[in-house]
Structure formats: C-alpha cells, structure tokens
C-alpha cells in the first residue's frame, strides 16, 4: 500500500484531502506543520508528499528544501498545495524542489488524477 504524507495545518482540509486519498486506497500520514512534515518524510519515507505552502512554523517551501537535502527522502515526489492568490509563488514552489502543484480549493473530481501522475 502506497503512503502519502499530507502536510497541512488546517484540520478541515486535512480531513477532506485525507478522506479522498484514503477512499482511493492509499495510506495517509498526517503532519500539522513543516517541522513535523520534514521529520515524517525522513522517518516514514512516503511515496508522495502533498505540501501546503502556508504553514505555521516554517513554510512549505522551506520544508521542501529541507526534504530535498535530507538523506533518505530527497527523491520523494512533492506536490505543492498553492492558493490562487499566491500565483506568483507557483514558480517559487518549483524552484524550491516541488514536482508539481495543485491549486486550492481542491477539486474532488480531479485531485486524484493530478496526484496519480506522480505515483
């Protein structure tokens, strides 16, 4: 069973995205902030990471850079969850090391297609 790490501070979003992914038959690992996300990425070595960019401690960009520099998690695909208002950030997410991005609010009809491109 493939594992997907979701780094997201908003409980409702975590529940929504986690629900959709679990329904599809993946294991979900939840991280509530960047630090936790980096830790779990190294510890659990998930198959994919969904990374929210706006996080309470250090943001998703920094978390991504840390993961990319880590020993055992540097190759894991990371998809950024970006907000529309932060359109300018999209390029930054790619620069930071993300493989792709999904715009929030997520579309439950299409999100899994997006995710599965990277699995």
């Amino acid at each position, binding site marked *: 069973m493939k594992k997907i790490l979701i780094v997201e501070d*908003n409980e*409702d979003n975590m529940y929504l995205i986690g629900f959709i992914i679990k329904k599809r038959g993946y294991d979900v690992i939840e991280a509530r902030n960047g630090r936790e996300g980096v830790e779990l990425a190294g510890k659990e070595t998930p198959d994919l990471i969904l990374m929210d960019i706006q996080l309470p401690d250090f943001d998703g960009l920094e978390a991504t850079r840390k993961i990319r520099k880590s020993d055992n998690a540097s190759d894991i695909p990371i998809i950024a969850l970006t907000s*529309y208002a932060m359109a300018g950030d999209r390029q930054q997410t790619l620069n930071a090391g993300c493989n792709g991005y999904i715009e929030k609010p997520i579309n439950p009809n299409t999100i899994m297609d997006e995710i599965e491109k990277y699995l």
Partner: protein
Amino acid sequence: MDDDPEASDTKKILESFGYSVPYVTSTVKDAIDKTCDLLPDIILMNLCLEDEFRGIHAEATEVKKELEKLRIPLLYLTTDSEDVKTSKDLLTSSYGCLIKPYDVAELKYAIELVIYKDKIKKEYEKSKNYYKTIFEHTGTATVIIEEDTIISLANTEFEKLSGYPREEIEGKRSWTEFVEKNDLIKMREYHSLRRINADSAPLIYDFQFINREGTVKNIHLDIGMIPGTKKSVASLLDVTERINAFEEIRKLYETERKARADANNAKEEISMVLERISDSFVALDNNWHYTYVNEKAAEHFGKTTEEMVGNHIWTLFPEGIDQPFYKAYHKAMEEQVFIHLEEYYAPYDRWFENDIYPSKDGITIFFKDITERVKMREELLFKTALLEAQLESTIDGILVVDDNGRSILYNQRFGEMWNIPPEILDSKDDKKMIECVLNQLRYPEIFIQKIEYLYANKSENSLDEIEFNDGKVFERYSSPLIDSNGDYGGRIWYFRDITELKKSQEAVRRSENKYRGLFDHAADGIFLMKGDTFIDCNKKTLEIYGVTRDQIINKTPYAFSPELQANGESSREKAFEHINKALAGYPQHFEWIHRRLDGTPFYAEVSLNRVKIEDEYLIQAIVRDVTDRKKSEEIEKENIKLKELDQLKSMFIASMSHELRTPLNSIIGFTGIILQGMTGEITDEQRKQLNIVKNSAQHLLALINDVIDLSKIEADKVELIIEDFDLSSVIMEIEQSFMDAVERKGLKMSVKMPESLPMNGDERRTKQVIMNMVSNAVKFTDKGKLTISIEKNDEFIEISVKDTGMGIKEEDQSKLFQAFSRIQSEDQPLVEGTGLGLYLSKKIAKLLNGDIKVKSQFNVGSEFIFILPVIYTKPEVIP
C-alpha cells in the same frame, strides 16, 4: 540733485571726504534756485530725476542754460550704463558721468577730477584774461610770435599799426610779411639765433615795417622769448615820426647856419614840426641848457616849456644826477654817439626809454614812459612761467589752441602721451600733428568729427574717450576759453590716460556684472537689508513678493508678513529677533509665512547672513518660496496615507484570499465528495440542492479570484510565467471543461484548429482569457452554436470565439471592457457574473502583448477575437 534715497548716503560719504554738501534736492527747479543761492563748486546730478525735467532732457534744456551761466561743473550720476554713452554724445557740458552703484573711491576720484579740471580751466582763463588785459593796454603794438614766425596773438595797437583786423592776423600771418625786404635778413637771423640759444639773439632791432597800405614805418623792435616756450613777445615801437622829426631838426640846424636871419622863422617852423611828434622830446646845448622842450615833455615834468627852456638841466632836476640817464647823456655828448636806453628812473618810480641823438651843439633826447610795457612784460613772463609750471605738473596732456585751431601751448606730457615726435610738435602744423595721431586710433573718423564739431560749435564742452589700436584709452576733455567779455579765445584740451582705470573699471564691472548676473538670475530671492530695511534686491525677490522695486526698497520685512506666524508668534518680534541674531553674526535659517501686497500668503525658507559691505554690516537674505514644496509635502503626506491604505487593501486581499478560500475549500470539497457518492447514495433532491451549493460556491470562488486578479493587475503585480506550450491542447482542455454546459443548454460547439500549435507565453493566463471568452459565449447564447477557430501567421495567433447569442448593441460595445459594467437589456434576464471578466481579459491580453476585439450584432451574435504574439517578448522597461 538726486531723488534716490542713497543721496543722503552720498552726502555722508562726501562729508567724510571733507566736502561740504549744503543741499540735497530731488527736483531740477529747486536745484536751479538753490544753485544760484549757494554757488557750489560742483553739482552731482542724477540723470533719472522724477519730475518734468527728466534726465537728459533736463540737461538739454533748462539746467544746462542755467548752470552754464553760473559756470558750475556738473557730474552726472546714473544707474544705466547706456546713459554714459548718451551723456558723452549729448551732454557736452558735462564733466563726466558716474555709474551707480559706484565705488566710494571712484566717486571721490571723479569729483576731484572735475574740481581739478574746473580749477585749471578757470585759472587759465583768469591768467589769460589778466595778461590779455595788460597786453591790450600797453599802448605799444605787441604780438606773440610763434617759432615759425606766425603771429598767434596781436593787440589793438598792432591792428592799428598793421592796418589789418586781428582775425586776419592771428594764426594767419607771419610777422615777417610786414618786414621790408632789406631788413628781412636780420630778422631771420634773430629766429635762427634764438633757435640755437634763446639768449644769444639780440633783443633790440630797428627795421622798416610795411603796413597794409604799403606805408613804410620805422620800427624800434623789442623782442624776447617767453621762458620755457618757443614763443617770442615783440613790442613794436613806431619811431617814424621821431626819425622824421630828427631829420627835420637836422635840416633846420643846417638851414640855420646858412641863414641866421631866418632863424626866428625857422624856429617857429621847427617847433611846428616838433609839436606834431607824439613822443616827449627835449634838446640840450653843450652847456646842458634846454634849447627845446616840446609840450608833451614839459607836461611830463609838470612844468611849462618856458620854465624849462634856457635853464640848466641838472639845476632843474638835481635828483637826476648820477642816475643811469645822467651818465648816458654825458656819454652821448662827449663821445658823440647814439644811445638807446631803457632804465628805471627812481625819483619818479617809473621806467623810461631814451633815444639820445648827439649833434654838434648838444644832444636831442626822445623819451617815453615805458613803465606799463615793462610791467606787462614782467607780468607776462611771470604768468606764463606759472602757467607752464602748472601745465607741466599735471598728469594730463594739455594742448591749448587758439581760436583758429592752431596750437599755442602744450605740455611735455601731451607730446609723450600721443607719441608725437618733437619736430612735428615744434612745427605747429596741426595737419601733421593730426596725421601723426590718427593712425594710432581705432576710430579715427569719430575723432576727426568731434574736432570739427567743436570748432564749429565754439562754446561747447566735450568729454569723450578715445580708443587706441593698442588698447590704450584716453579721456579727452575739451573746454572753450572764454574771456571776461565773453569772447571765445581758443580751446583747451586735456588728455588723460585712463587705460589702467578703464581696465580696472572693466574688471570691476565684469566681476560686478558677473555677480550682478548671478544675483539677478538667482532662482532664490536675494536681498540686502540695512537693519530691517530692504536696500537692494534681485529680480526673483520682486517676483516672489509680487512687487515692483519701488514697492520694496526702504520697506521692512513686516510689511510683507501677516501679523502672526503659523505658531502664533508676532511676525514683527520674531523677525526682529532673527535680524538681531544675524547681525550679531549668527546665521539664521527659518521658515516664514509672508504676505504679498495683494494679501496672498506664501511659505518661504529664509536664510539671513551678515555681510560686510564698505565697513558696514548688512544682512543678506535668501528667500525661497516653498509654497509649492509645502503643497507637495502635503501631497506627499496624502500619498503616504494612500499607500498605507493601499497596503491595507493588499493585506485585506491577501487575507481574503486565504481566509475566504479556506471555508470554500471545505464547501466545494465536501459537496464534491458527497455528489460523487463517496459517502454513500444521495437522493435526486439532495443532488439538486448540493449542486446549487456547489455552483454558488464556485461562483463565489470565481468572484474572489476575479477581485484578487483585479487588485494584482492594478498594482502591476501580476507575475507572468513564460514558457513554451501547445495552444491546441489548452483549447482542447477548455472544450472538454465546457462540454457539459454546452450540452445542457442544447448548443453545439465546433473547434477549428491545427492539431498542434506550439507557442511561447503564459499558459495559465492565456487559458484564463479563452475560458472567459468561451464562458461568456455559453452564458449569453441560448440557441445555435459556438465556434472556436484559430488563425495564425508568423507573428500572431488569433483565437476567435463566435456565438449566435443575443449580441451587443453598438452603443454598449464600448462599455464591454470596463470594470463592473454589466450590459443588461430589459427583455433579458440577468446573467450571473462578476462584471469583471472582460475587463480582466483585456488587461491580461495586454499584459501578454496581445489584445481582445469584439464584433457583434444585436440579436445575431458576437465574435470575440483574442490576438496573441506567437512568441512573448518582455516589454522594455522604461525606467
């Protein structure tokens, strides 16, 4: 005569030089009256007086006439350098012109020069008048002879003797014209001898003089040189009658001897002849008894003829024994020689001239009282020497010409200044002299014109400057010589080398002009204050204060300030404080509210500095009108507020994007999950309602997104992501996403495009625009079809979205691309939307270096065409 307030300063300055300044006035009429009363040595007159006699006009009329009568020198003052030229051309009676502002030293120099010139001129005239009077009244024909034998001056007696009027003699005739041919040799000898050594020439000559009528006269000439000059003074004594008389006597004596019988008759005849002689005349026999005394002689001694004849001379005049004449008589008697004697006779305190002729039975003496003549000669010599000394001691080159324009006097300096070789100077040939001078001059024609003008207008004075080719500048002053009878007697020329003065004046003026220029054209108001009074200011000051010069000079700063400053302090007290501090040497910088004469206020930055000008502390103020800056400061403040507001807006939008979308995330996400049946079966009713929730949420999201886009575009914060992409696949995606909606409305959609359309640009933004176009087409079309087609050339791609919808009225088409404009017709239901779609699309199209155009016909359909460059090029940023 000056209406300028500086006049009182000038008065002070002049008094400090030791001049007395009895009167200052600003009107010409007053000046004329006062001048008559006070008889000053000099008048300073401003050329720009404010009454009916303005400046030069005044000069040309009343003042000139009045002041010329009084013979008082005038010095003009002017502020305009143009006037100097005018004054020199027109104001010929002026002694000069001084340009304001002038240096104190310059003023002093000018005044002293005028007074000096006037003094020299008057002394010369006085001295000339004096000797001319003596000259006229010697009773002997007298002439002044130039070196070249031309008579430059002749008196009335000479006129009588020669038979010519003076005008035909002076400067025109050589005295040798009057000398009988046989005597010319000795007269020429005199001239050549005295050329070698003035003292070597004899002083006494006898020659025959031929007058106008051709009459021959025997002349006893007494000639001598005026020391220090090449001129001679000659007295011509007509001794014709005397010689004739002597001849007569001689003949009579001979006749007497032949016919003693007729002696009585003869005696009578003799006395008849002798009485006709104008000279005094006595005859003595061997025993010193008077044998004959004519009336004139008797009169001379205060006796009658009878009292004298037959008496012994030394019995009658014992006081004459041992006088010079006594000896001469004895010598003539004993040695039988002719003796001419001019001597002082102490008993009478007079000078006498004696011609003693010996005869067998005694001597005959002609005598004449020559006291006047001797006195005249002495006076003349003395006066001339004095004058010469004066001339030589001045720094001016001086040339005196007679009324025929011939030079009669010049000093050494004159020759040096003009570089005239001595032989030309001595020649007195004015043509040669002028010729020698002309080739040195820059403007020889003007030089000549002036001379001609002045000889034609004998009473005019003139002052001008002469420029030389080598850069030298002379001041030329000329004044007529007018004697006490008001007769013109020639002209005196003064030349002063003012090259250095000019140069330094020019340097001063240039630097002054420079500073004046800086001063006048400064961007700030600059003015000088004496205490709290404005005394000078530049043009900008006038502009700032909105005044004329007259309205500001002599006013105080309080006149241009409101009663109170912005902080409530009294303008007067505050200004006074600043001025005093500045005067104490502490430069002041402050802001000040001024008030123009018309009452409008202005803000200024003021700097006060103490400056020392001519031993006096003044305040130099620099005033900068900062009203505009004040305004811009206010605008700046407004701008900062607006920027703060703008930041607030940005923060609000950022917050909105996050905070509003987070709940939408849940709404859209969970309604989607439920609608997909992931959470179990739902009823049709539930599905319908959930779809409404979902659509409303989507609409709200679109609205939020549009607002965010709008704020970004307006803040120029849109970041384009430029990359290569395939337009065909973008359009295919769009086609897919609208498939459902198109089918639901019963429309048909066709796409005409090549399989692949590679281009370069912002894929997401391009898609956003096309989506908006298609979305609009779907929204506003109820039946028919949509056509998406693409045309392409090397540079541009045109994406056309054509519908068969309601169309847009022509009058509404211009409103299409405005923000929040929603075109609505009465018979059409409101279609949902933000009203931002087309506005944003157009903006984005422009950002992508493209455009959107519309073609529409009401109730037929619309076509929106999106034009895009195939390859995006970043516009050049204009900094």
